[in-house]
């Protein structure tokens, strides 16, 4: 039992779980034909069958029950403000399954030359809003209200000690829906994690319909028709948003240190902080020379690397690997698409660099900015 707990603690560490999930992700949601081949070969599409759904939800339920059996973890899970996150976890997985199941069905139909399940003969397609739709809405609203009233009667809204600016709780956490942003603070400075990235998320979401140049395939669940965009969107939604919220809520304890589900939140846990900048890695460790005095020279690799990553890589790919894709999209769309995707990928890249090389900053110009 202790070994099992220890193993679960180890597995839930983002350093382990994130790379595993990230690699698995693209085989479960294949963005390209190559991944799709492996998806079929590994039978990952069976996740979206009723049995697959039962297994997924069963595992989550077991995990939840197991977690609440542990007295320490129960305190965290049953915190009143954390109950919505449990709803979010089950909700996001259930609706993911529901949409992917219908997508899988529809893809099989489309392959067989049939119309999607949503399609209906125009002659007999319409349902009157009064009374059918209004009944559904009324019942939904009543059930929703009943659910909230029951929830409210059983669970009191939290109210802690009166505000005291002199007494900071440890850890101080943002509201749960912003915890993915707070989790980004581990890897990026506030101006990026708290301002630039949220802005890019909003801009990117608004830009999405203008980037997805394929006008077909609207109005029904499908994966094969939109695999690239579904894959990227779900990567952002499931791994960079929901997953980071879960980590931020349940697995981040005092001093924002990582704590496994079966680990006691010890405020005195010592975590070595020996992160180094890219400039130090290159000049001192690699070239065995002191850091140059000129800031531009010192940070040259980081600056050029980032500029190259954002502004040279896309044109190179446009000419080579992504030629067809870029041609379909057009220059403007392709440019914006690549910029937003590469900015989004900066987060997992920085995470992995932090875990493998203890990298602190790619570019560090004190007094100006750090990246």
């Amino acid at each position, binding site marked *: 039992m202790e070994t099992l707990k220890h193993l679960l603690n180890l597995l839930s560490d983002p350093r382990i779980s994130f790379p595993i999930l990230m690699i698995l992700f693209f085989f479960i949601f294949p963005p390209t034909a190559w991944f799709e081949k492996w998806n079929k070969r590994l039978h990952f599409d069976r996740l979206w069958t009723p049995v697959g759904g039962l297994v997924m939800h069963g595992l989550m339920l077991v995990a939840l029950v197991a977690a609440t059996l542990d007295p320490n973890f129960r305190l965290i899970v049953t915190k009143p*403000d954390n109950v919505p996150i449990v*709803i979010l976890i089950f909700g996001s997985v259930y609706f993911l399954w529901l949409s992917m199941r219908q997508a899988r069905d529809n893809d099989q139909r489309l392959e067989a030359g049939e119309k999607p399940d949503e399609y*209906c003969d125009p002659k007999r397609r319409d*349902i*009157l809003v009064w009374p059918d739709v209004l009944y559904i809405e009324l019942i939904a609203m009543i059930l929703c209200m009943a659910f909230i009233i029951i929830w409210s009667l059983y669970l009191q809204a939290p*109210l802690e000690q009166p505000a005291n600016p002199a007494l900071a709780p440890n850890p101080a956490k943002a509201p749960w829906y912003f915890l993915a942003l707070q989790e980004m603070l581990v890897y990026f400075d506030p101006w990026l994690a708290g*301002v630039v990235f949220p802005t890019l998320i909003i801009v990117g979401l*608004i830009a999405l319909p203008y980037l997805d140049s394929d006008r077909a395939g609207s109005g029904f669940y499908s994966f094969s028709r939109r695999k690239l965009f579904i894959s990227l969107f779900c990567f952002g939604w499931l791994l960079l948003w929901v997953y980071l919220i879960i980590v931020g809520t349940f697995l981040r304890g005092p001093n924002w240190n990582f704590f496994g589900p079966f680990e006691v939140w010890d405020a005195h846990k010592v975590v070595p902080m020996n992160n180094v900048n890219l400039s130090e890695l290159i000049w001192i460790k690699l070239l065995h020379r002191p850091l140059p005095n000129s800031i531009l020279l010192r940070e040259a690799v980081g600056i050029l690397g980032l500029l190259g990553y954002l502004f040279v890589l896309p044109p190179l790919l446009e000419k080579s690997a992504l030629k067809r894709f870029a041609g379909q999209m057009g220059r403007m769309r392709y440019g914006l698409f690549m910029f937003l995707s590469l900015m989004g990928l900066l987060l997992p890249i920085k995470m992995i660099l932090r875990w493998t090389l203890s990298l602190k900053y790619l570019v560090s110009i004190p007094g100006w900015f750090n990246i």
Partner: protein
Amino acid sequence: MGPEKKQKRNLADLIFKSVLWRSIFRTDIPTDKRGRMVTVLNNFFLHLHPVSIPRHAVKLKYTWLMGILATFLFFVLTITGILLMFYYRPTVQYAYNDVLDMAESTPLGVMREIHRWSAHLMVITVWLHMFRVFMTGSYKPPREFNWGVGVILLTLTMLLSFTGYLLPWDQLAIWAITVGSNMAAATPLVGREGPGSALLSIGDISLIGRTSDAKFMLLGDTRIAEGALLRFYVFHCVFFPFIIVMFMMVHFWRIRKDGGISGPA
């Protein structure tokens, strides 16, 4: 013949055929298809809907009802929020005790619970609504603008929830807002700790300082105190609800104008 005719005027007729009723509702209780269509057209609230919708859109597995539930939760939050405002004063001196009293000494003392849990639920339903719209490809033309309006509504939902988080004025509240508002100080150019803030200066005088940056504008102070509480109260109760209602109106109107609920061609 006379008495018989009088007996047929039952209670339903007395109400539904009365001058009062007919002055309020512009159509009779519908009994046929035409009547059902006219009912929807002639009612201010119902006419958000079209008269009829495609068969697939009635199935729960297609829409998940997330849009309607998010709207419903917004109204639950508005009503409970207004009730809470009767009992709450946004000052450092009173705020915490008012919230404490709410549970203890007001009739129907679960209003704060209903408000808080509905708020959490609204954030989740709005996210899942976006996820559904995405997974059905419904953001594609001609609905691309309305998707953008939806993204703004989602952002506003989170801002509404965030500004409400401070109001109980307990430890949970101010430290969660501390984490959030420190981000404002890091805004490029206009945040004191953000990159480029030194650029905005005239001669030796810096325009961005402790009392003149984005964080100060948000909090009305250099730290979370009286000014921040009042600002967040006004943001939460007036400013953001006003803005979100504007965007909701456009969102609903555009759903209709863009051809109603999405479906396969």
